[in-house]
């Protein structure tokens, strides 16, 4: 009897082994997209036929065999410029999110752990910052600092840290009352040690999920700021900047098509991976 039932049971077991439940098709696609862009960003100078700033052909040429995505108003190759764009968008997104996570999490952890006045002050600052539409606040900050990718990055950190403060504060508040934290205090651990060793290591999963999704959002925000002339400055092959140039030559659709698709794919990729991470860390939430 055992022999008869075994073969039926085995494939189901094997399938679960080879592909964990959170690794769904969208997550795989997301990972593939991000891997593609990372590889492009690292290796693109090695294999493109043109330089992104070089005038590679006649201006405003539609897509052809020589220029797969056509040429822009100055005759530069749109595909090459799009691929080079990843060298700006990707590092900026990573740096902005990393800094925002560091600042936001530190402040949120302090607010949640100390409570009282520190909590009030930090969280009111968070509320005030979140009350502005992000793009508006980012525009205001960049306008005050002057255009340029570095200032845009500062502006994007300024708008994205508060979410991390909230996430970390909520986690610390809920973990603070856990019995193992009380046990650590009963063991004579100092307050900083309790926070760093016994609370923070358990508090990262919501932040990690949100940070992954935010990478895509920061790519979009960076492009938005460049589009309205507050981010990357003209010769730079940055996606928002390229779309902005494409908007001037509205009937040469291919100029905006390349960078537009690039932004779309990157936002989508990070969102897919973020969803997968959420399923991995918290299987009960979501669908």
């Amino acid at each position, binding site marked *: 009897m055992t022999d008869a039932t075994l073969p039926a049971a085995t494939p189901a077991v094997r399938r679960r082994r080879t592909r964990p439940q959170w690794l769904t098709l969208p997550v795989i696609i997301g990972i593939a997209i991000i891997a593609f862009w990372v590889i492009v960003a690292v290796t693109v100078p090695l294999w493109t036929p043109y330089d992104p700033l070089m005038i590679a052909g006649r201006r405003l040429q539609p897509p052809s065999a020589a220029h797969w995505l056509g040429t822009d108003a100055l005759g530069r190759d749109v595909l090459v410029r799009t691929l080079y764009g990843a060298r700006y968008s990707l590092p900026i997104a990573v740096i902005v999110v990393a800094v925002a996570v560091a600042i936001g999490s530190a402040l949120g952890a302090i607010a949640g752990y100390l409570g009282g006045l520190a909590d009030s002050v930090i969280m009111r600052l968070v509320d005030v910052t979140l009350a502005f539409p992000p793009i508006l606040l980012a525009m205001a900050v960049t306008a005050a600092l002057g255009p340029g990718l570095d200032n845009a990055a500062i502006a994007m950190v300024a708008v994205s840290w508060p979410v991390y403060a909230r996430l970390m504060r909520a986690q610390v508040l809920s973990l603070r009352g856990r*019995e193992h934290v009380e046990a650590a205090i009963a063991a004579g651990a100092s307050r900083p040690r309790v926070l760093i*060793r016994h609370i923070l290591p358990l508090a990262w999963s919501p932040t990690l999920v949100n940070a992954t999704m935010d990478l895509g959002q920061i790519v979009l925000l960076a492009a938005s700021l460049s589009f309205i002339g507050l981010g990357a400055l003209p010769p730079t092959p940055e996606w928002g900047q390229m779309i902005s140039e494409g908007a001037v030559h509205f009937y040469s659709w291919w100029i905006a098509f390349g960078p537009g698709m690039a932004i779309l794919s990157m936002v989508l990729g990070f969102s897919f991976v973020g969803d997968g991470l959420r399923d991995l860390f918290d299987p009960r939430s979501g669908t």
Partner: protein
Amino acid sequence: MSAVGTASAAAARPPLFEVRDLRVVFPGPAGGLEAVSGVDLSVDRGEVLAVVGESGSGKSVTMLAAMGLTGPAVKVTGSVKLDGEDYLGRPEALRRLRGKRMAMIFQDPMTALNPVMTVGAQITEMIRIHDRSVSQRQAMKKAVDLLALVAVPFPERRAAQYPHEFSGGMRQRAMIAMAMANDPEVLIADEPTTALDVTIQAQIIELLDGLRRERGLALVLITHDLGIVAGLADRVAILYAGRVVERAPVREAYYRPAHPYTASLLKALPSLEGDRGRLVPIDGSPPGLAARPPGCSFHPRCPIAVPRCSVERPALIAVGDHAAACHLADLSARTPLPMPAAGGAR
């Protein structure tokens, strides 16, 4: 306060760990909610004091307050002395004491261990918090020894594992190993066996008793399990509504309870010997923090209450080593209990 500790030592020096007139007030309406109203407890080396009470009687809060673990909003007054030195209201001194000279084990070993640190690392941390001069390697070696001490099999391998790889009983052993890491003088065990099944309970009790005997540990056992009290404790303090209502050597309390609450608790307990009559429950429920009755807190539920009980609060009156807070208890007329045939309780 009455005679405390063993008879010979009581007069000469103060008990090792002593809580006097402890009051714990939680923030609340009308000047706050008093969870503990003047509790006196003491325990000496090699001795087991059981603190018994229903949920909400203040037994855990008393010990948490004595360890300085109640948080800044809670007002704690009275005195908490270790070796005659008062530590209450000195948070930094208390912090150095905690885990070093006074250790605590918690009710639920499932949640009291840090899930993202290996068990060995947690014991190691315990050692290195209090003595930075111990190297990581030495501390880890000691952690393995400690796991062996609490009878965890394969201690080297177990030290490298995470709490989720431990069973409930093994986790409680690991907790005890952590508590013993710095060779404390006082061990406070807050319902150490509640979350465990009966066989494992017996093993843990055995382990605690062994540590008490071999290392001269002063053990404070917080529990509502009268069976464990009978098996392990030397003396027992019964708490009701934030006060000690009876304090006595374990045999006295079991055979001749002086307070009707203690008597009711014992009647509510099933017995293996004698007639198996109906268990007698205590009617009603303990009073809430905000609505403690006047007079004796127990009078609304007391089977023998007289009018005086609802007006005047009985003081805790001691005769010899037996103390009770009841107008109707007369301890002075008693003769000593005959010694048991087996030659005394331990």
